[in-house]
């Protein structure tokens, strides 16, 4: 266990936004909350999963809802903490630590917000290694762990316990319904995990990895080096394409933001076109109509100059962007993993092939 500095939280926000692969929501407001907490003297602790006893309980937390609603109903640590304490009351047991559901986007910082109130450590890890749009797209689901109970809290003191669900899909449906009812934004504590489950089934070390990516970007900017090169160095990623966005189509279906973006090549990629399809997060990329990269490989779109991640909601005509592929956690690449988060899980009839294979 070690203390996390305020600077590391800043780095985490940058790195997690890149690992968000276009989704996960901007970490800015969660970061502001942490700045406030650290100003008041809070110091969060980051805990290695190996320090957990097998029968310890870990709270897996996330903010759920529409990112746009989150821009008005600003996320706060108390609601996050409420979801966790509700779960403790329901279980009649105390948690040893908190962990993020997804390291991509704003949810990377949510466990720190809860931890700041509850004085608990945060586990270095998550269960996606990136961001994904649906509840069953986790390493826990791939390992067939139980998906209930779940607690959901809103800022007005409304709270819901989903005691049982027949499947991950049902859990997604029921909790989504409750979330919409309280205004499409809520704090959730997912099914509690034992120390053993965390050690065996979580994607470990992803918090440290996100901090490292952010730190590399910051160092590159300070030294006036290319922040994208820095990201590739620290992640072992590949630069797939660079160009200018010349077409975007977006639509909402079944509560998700789906669409495509077309990028016209610049510099080394002049004369070529790259097309991206997304469901909240980027799912598949085609180079000149040939599939080039697909989920679960991480497809990240960043500002070509600043290296900042660009979300699927903020993609804009004319932006100069670079498309990167970063390696996915090994669990997602197993046959079972591909079933849950491969291209077919997103409706693309493609045989998964990693760009890193």
């Amino acid at each position, binding site marked *: 266990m070690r203390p996390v500095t305020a600077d590391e939280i800043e780095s985490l926000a940058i790195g997690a936004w890149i690992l968000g692969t276009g989704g996960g929501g901007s970490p800015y407001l969660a970061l502001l909350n942490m700045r406030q907490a650290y100003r008041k003297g809070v110091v969060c602790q980051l805990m290695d999963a190996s320090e957990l006893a097998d029968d310890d309980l870990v709270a897996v937390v996330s903010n759920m809802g529409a990112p746009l609603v989150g821009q008005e109903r600003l996320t706060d640590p108390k609601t996050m903490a409420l979801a966790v304490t509700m779960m403790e009351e329901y279980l009649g047991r105390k948690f040893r630590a908190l962990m993020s559901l997804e390291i991509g986007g704003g949810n990377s910082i949510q466990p720190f917000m809860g931890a700041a109130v509850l004085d608990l450590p945060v586990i270095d890890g998550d269960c996606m290694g990136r961001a994904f749009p649906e509840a069953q797209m986790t390493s826990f689901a791939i390992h067939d762990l139980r998906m209930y109970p779940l607690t959901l809290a809103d800022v007005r003191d409304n709270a819901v316990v989903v005691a049982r669900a027949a499947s991950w899909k049902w859990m997604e449906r029921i909790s989504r319904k409750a979330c919409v009812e309280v205004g*499409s934004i809520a704090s959730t504590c997912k099914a509690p995990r034992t120390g053993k489950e965390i050690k065996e089934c979580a994607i470990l070390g992803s918090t440290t990895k996100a901090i490292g990516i952010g730190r590399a970007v910051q160092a590159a900017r300070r030294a006036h080096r290319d922040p994208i090169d820095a990201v590739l160095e620290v992640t072992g990623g590949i630069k797939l394409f660079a160009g200018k966005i010349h077409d975007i189509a977006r639509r*909402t279906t079944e509560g998700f933001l789906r669409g495509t973006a077309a990028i016209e090549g610049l510099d080394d990629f002049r004369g070529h076109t790259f097309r991206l399809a997304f469901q909240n997060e980027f799912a598949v990329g085609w180079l000149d109509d040939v599939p080039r990269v697909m989920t679960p490989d991480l497809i990240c779109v960043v500002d070509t100059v600043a290296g900042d991640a660009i979300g699927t909601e903020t993609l804009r005509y004319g932006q100069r962007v670079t498309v990167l592929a970063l390696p996915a956690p090994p669990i997602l690449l197993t046959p079972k993993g591909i079933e849950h988060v491969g291209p077919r899980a997103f409706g693309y009839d493609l045989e998964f092939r990693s760009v890193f294979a």
Partner: protein
Amino acid sequence: MRRRIGIDVGGTNTDAVLLEDDGVAAAVKTPTTSDVTTGITKALAALVAQAPGARTAQAVMIGTTHFTNAVVQRRDLGRVAAVRIGLPSGASLPPFVDWPEDLAELVRAEVVTLEGGHEFDGRPLVPFDARGMRAAARRIREAGITSVAVAAVFSPLNAAGEEEAAAILAEEYPGVAVTQSHRLGRIGLLERENAALLNACLIELARKTTRAFTEALRASGIAAPLYLTQNDGTVMLAEVAEAYPVYSFASGPTNSMRGAAFLSKRDEALVVDVGGTTTDIGSLRHGFPREANSVVEIGGVRTLFRMPDLLSLGLGGGTRVAREPLAIGPTSVGYRLTEQALVFGGDVLTVTDVAVAAGLIDLGDRARVASLPAALVDAALVRIRGMIEEGVDRMKTDAGLVPLIAVGGGSFLVPARLAGVSEVLNVPHQAVANAVGAAIAQVSGEVDQIFQDLTREEAIARARRAAEDKAVAAGADRATINVVEVEDLPLAYLPGNSLRTRVRVVGEIAR
């Protein structure tokens, strides 16, 4: 005949033009004065001397960077009471939370947070705490704070909370200035609240400045109504605009781009505006600057203003040139150009000296740069060309060739041929394009709202009607209104096929 006067009050120069129908009848450039009024009075006197018809102009439009400069330089700012309506939501991130501490300390007089606000579908979040508002209004009055910013959760969708708060403030504290966030911004509570707070701290300065403008006009014997130009290239009547100083934050560059479109008769082009210190590159779409979609920082404060998407380069007439190794900028001698540049008898090698040595322009004493090595001059020009070409490429929206309109006092620095550019357009009066842009400004209306369970066409039609009503309320002639921007964004995770729709319309000023 349609006669309009356009004035641009910049940091260095005050420019004025008289537009008769669609032609520039007179143009003057005078130094800006510290009291603003004297500079405008002088500019108007010179304009009237050139074209006596200026006295019978039907409208005067002024663009100024005065308010942006006040925030950036932390001067002339008023103290503000912030009222946030939205508890229990957002309690951990109070007003001013992401402001630079020095600016927050100058501006923050009182922070009030109250229960209220709405959901994304317009339902109340919790009932509005009207009693709390009344008590706060009394406290604000007793503390002698004269300006209040009110921001409520989801007020762009349902403004009832902010309106009720303003009504209570008016009852308890007659005459207090109230800025309501929904009048200023879009969805994004912190950024919209920041806009309201900035507006509130500038409101006293805006009143004084607007009065100074009006006095200058009267002193010049011009009876026409006064308009102030806005970030989006449109105008508001001065008496309305003085309540919204933040709307003029980016009016300088906007006016120069609009002026460039008018003078060149091009609606789709890139514009390069070369001043003394910086070069701004922007993109014209339908004759208006393409707007930045992302967060814009003013003096370190995040906002979501309607701002042109601009790329600013450290290149201007006063930019310093270092010899060994060769470097252009980024610092500039600024308004001291006429003392410090070689051609003016100084000892600083500037971009202007290079341009004179290369014969791009005849300024000052050419003999003083005759000894500059030709290789240095050539290398500097190559570097300048490279900076402009890279900037142009970054602002282009597609890979094809685009026309580039060169404006501003330093437009002689723009080479006649550039990579990626179909033609470089040099137009008469290019040095006063910003004042021309002010003179041709129109009136706009904008709506940015979430619609549910409507087809895309229905949502856009509804937004369009609301935007037209807003434009008419701001002084537009309904018959001349055109839609200039439609943007729709489906929202992830919201039920019922939710669509965020933004429509902007513009029209001519109603006579």
